C-alpha cells in the first residue's frame, strides 16, 4: 500500500513537470529576458543580480510601466554551464516578443551565448566580468568583427587593476607581490597587472599562483614576503579572498593587502571574518554610497536604490547588484526611448551618453559597448564589517 502511494506521488510529480513549461502572458506587457546563473558555482552572484533586475522592473511598473504597458521578465537559469546557457537562451527566444536580454552572469556562459545573440539580433546587456566578451572578434579571421548586439555593465578589469596601481604609486608603494588564482579570472589579472603596473611606476617583484579551491596559501605568501614587498595584490573571487586575508594575519606580514573588484561585497566578510579588517580594493560606489561627497551626482541615485533594495530583500547590496541594476536601467531607458523594437533598442543603448548609473556614468559608443572608465571606480577599505571610502 505504502509502495503504491509512493508510486502515485512519483507519477503526479512526473505529470506536473510535463505540464509546467508554458509561461503565463498578459496580453499587453513588454517582455524582456533575464538570464542568470541561478544555480551552480555562480549562483551567489546570479541570484543577487536577478534581485537587482526585479527591483528595477518593479520600480518601472509601479510608476505605470512604459506608455501604459507593463514590463515583464521571462527568466532563464544558465546553471553556470555554457551548454545550459545556450539552452536557456533558446527557450527565452521562443517567446518571440522578447525585446531585449539582460544577463548572463558568468563570462563562460556569456561567450557561449554571444554567437547566437549576434545571429538572432537581440540587444543584450550582460553583467559578466570578462573583457573578452567585447574584445574578442566574432570571426577569428576578421579582427574588426566585434559584437554589435552585445553590451556589458561591469567596468573593465584592466581599469580596476589600473586604479589599484594608481593608488599604490600615490602612497609610495613601489615593489609589489602579485597573487592570483590559477584559472581564467586570476590569469587575466596577471596579464593586466603586467601592463598597468609599469604605467604607474610600480614593479611586480614576485608573482605566485594558487588553486581556487586551496585552503591554505601561506606557502605562496611566505615566498612573496621574502622579496620585501611594500604591498600585495590578490586576484581572486570566492573563499580564497578570505583565506588570503587570514593567512597574512597569521604570518604577521605588514605589507598592505589589495584584493580585486569583486571583493567589495557582503560575501567578503562572510569568508574573511575579522581578518578582513584593513584590506583595500577597487569597487563601485554602491557599498560606500553614504560616504560620497554631496557633489557626487551618483550619490542620490545610489542611496535611493540601496534603500529600496534593503526594504525589499532585507540585506545590504554589494557590487554585483550594481552591475545587474545598471544593465536593467539602461535597457529599460532604451525601451522607453525607442519602443519595443529590437533594432531601435540596440541603437538607443549604443547612444547612451552620460547616463548616471549605480556603477558609474555610462558613455556607450559603437567603439565601447561598456562605457565606464577608471573615473567610476573608487578605492575602499574593509572596516568593521563594512567599508570606508579612500581618497
Amino acid at each position: 500500500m505504502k509502495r503504491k502511494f509512493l508510486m502515485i506521488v512519483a507519477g503526479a510529480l512526473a505529470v506536473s513537470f510535463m505540464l509546467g513549461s508554458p509561461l503565463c502572458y498578459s496580453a499587453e506587457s513588454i517582455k524582456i529576458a533575464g538570464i542568470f546563473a541561478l544555480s551552480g558555482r555562480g549562483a551567489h552572484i546570479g541570484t543577487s543580480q536577478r534581485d537587482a533586475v526585479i527591483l528595477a522592473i518593479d520600480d518601472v511598473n509601479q510608476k505605470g510601466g512604459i506608455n501604459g504597458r507593463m514590463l515583464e521578465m521571462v527568466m532563464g537559469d544558465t546553471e553556470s554551464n555554457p551548454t545550459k546557457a545556450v539552452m536557456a537562451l533558446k527557450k527565452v527566444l521562443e517567446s518571440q516578443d522578447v525585446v531585449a536580454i539582460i544577463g548572463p552572469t558568468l563570462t563562460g556562459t556569456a561567450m557561449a551565448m554571444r554567437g547566437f545573440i549576434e545571429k538572432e539580433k537581440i540587444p543584450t546587456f550582460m553583467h559578466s566580468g570578462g573583457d573578452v566578451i567585447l574584445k574578442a572578434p566574432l570571426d577569428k579571421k576578421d579582427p574588426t568583427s566585434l559584437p554589435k548586439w552585445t553590451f556589458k555593465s561591469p567596468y573593465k578589469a584592466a581599469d580596476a587593476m589600473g586604479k589599484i596601481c594608481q593608488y599604490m604609486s600615490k602612497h609610495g608603494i613601489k615593489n609589489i607581490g602579485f597573487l592570483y588564482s590559477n584559472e581564467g579570472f586570476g590569469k587575466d589579472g596577471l596579464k593586466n597587472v603586467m601592463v598597468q603596473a609599469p604605467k604607474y611606476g610600480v614593479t611586480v617583484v614576485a608573482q605566485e599562483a594558487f588553486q581556487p579551491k586551496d585552503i591554505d596559501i601561506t606557502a605562496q605568501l611566505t615566498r612573496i614576503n621574502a622579496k620585501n614587498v611594500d604591498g600585495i595584490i590578490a586576484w581572486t573571487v570566492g573563499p580564497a579572498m578570505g583565506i588570503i586575508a587570514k593567512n597574512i594575519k597569521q604570518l604577521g606580514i605588514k605589507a598592505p593587502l589589495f584584493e580585486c573588484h569583486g571583493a567589495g561585497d557582503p560575501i567578503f566578510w562572510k569568508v574573511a571574518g575579522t581578518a578582513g579588517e584593513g584590506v583595500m580594493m577597487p569597487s563601485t560606489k554602491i557599498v560606500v554610497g553614504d560616504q560620497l561627497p554631496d557633489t557626487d551626482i551618483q550619490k542620490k541615485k545610489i542611496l535611493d536604490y540601496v534603500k529600496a533594495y534593503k526594504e525589499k530583500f532585507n540585506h545590504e547590496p554589494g557590487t554585483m547588484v550594481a552591475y545587474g541594476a545598471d544593465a536593467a536601467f539602461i535597457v529599460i531607458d532604451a525601451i522607453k526611448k525607442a519602443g519595443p523594437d529590437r533594432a531601435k533598442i540596440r541603437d538607443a543603448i549604443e547612444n547612451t551618453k552620460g547616463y548616471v548609473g549605480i556603477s558609474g556614468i555610462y558613455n556607450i559608443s559603437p567603439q565601447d559597448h561598456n562605457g565606464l572608465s577608471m573615473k567610476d571606480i573608487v578605492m575602499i577599505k574593509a572596516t568593521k564589517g563594512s567599508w570606508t571610502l579612500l581618497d
Partner: protein
Amino acid sequence: MNSLSKQKDIIGFGALAVIIIILPLFVESKYYFIVLNVIGLNTIVVVGLNLLIGFTGQISLGHAAFYGLGSYFSGVLTVNYGFPLWPAMLVGMLATGAVAYLIGYPSLKLQGHYLVMATLGFGIIINILMGELEQFTGGHDGLMGIPPLTMGGLAFDNDLKNFYLIWSFVFLCMLAARNLLNSRVGRALRAISGSEVAANSLGVNTADYKVKVFVLSAMFASISGSLYAHYITFISPSSYDFHYSIQVVTMVIVGGMGSLWGSLLGAGVLTYISEALHVAKQYHVIAYGVFLCLVLIFLPEGILIGIYNLFLKAKTKKHIMKADRH
C-alpha cells in the same frame, strides 16, 4: 541470436528512424530542438559508456575528457590550423581512441576497479590542460568561432539541420553497438558480464576485450564532442568538468546498465527532466535529486527494465487473482 529478438531490433530501429524523420513535423520550437539535440549528443556518449559499464562491469569517470578531446580536436584543428572539418573529426576520434588505449591497457590488466581511478585522474588532468594550454585552446575564455559542419553545399548551421545530423549519428552509433553485441565479440562481452572467471577459462581474453570496449566507448564520446563543438560553435573547459562524467554515468544507471534502448531512454529522461524541473525555480536541484532517488529506490534495474518488470508483475498478479477466484 534468435529470430524473435532480431525481429524486435528491426522494429525498434525502424521506429527510431521513422521518429527521427517525422519528429520535426511536430516540433516547431527551437528550444525543443536544442533539448533534443543535447539529448542526442548525450545518447551517443551514454551508448558507448554503457557498453563499458554494462558488459565489462568497469566504470569510467573520465568520459567528460574523451568528450572534450573530441570537441577540442575538432575546434583547435579547424579554427587554428584551417583543417577540413570531417577529417578533423576523424583525427579527434582516432587520437582519443589512442589515448584511451594508453590508459586502458595498463589499468584493465589489473583485477578490480583500477580504471575508475585512472580515468578520474585523467579527466581532471585533461580539464586542467584545456585551461592551461592557452595558445592552442584559448584557455578559460574558451575557443570561439568554430565553423558548422558542411556536407556538399549544405551547412549544418541551425537547430533543425543539426537535429538531423546529430540524430543520424545517434542512429548509426546505436546500430553499431547493436551489431557489435550480436557478433562474436558481443557474445564474448556477454560472457564477461556473466562471469569473468568463467569467460577467461573458456578462452576469452577478457583483458583484451575490456581494453577494446573502453577504446570504443571513448571514440563514441569523441564523436559526440566533435558534433557538439560544431553545433554550439564555442567550447570552454567548464563544459567538460568532472560533473559531466558523473552525469553520463548516472544516465547509464538510470537507463539501465547493459541495455541499448535504456541508454537512449536514460539520456533522454535525465536531460529533459533537468530542463523541465526549472518550473520548480530555485528548488529544481532538489527536485532533480528526489527524482534520481525515486528511480534508484524503486527501479534499481533502470527505467526501461524496471517499468517492464513492474508491468510483468502486475500482469502475473492479475493472473494469480484470477486463478484464486476460480
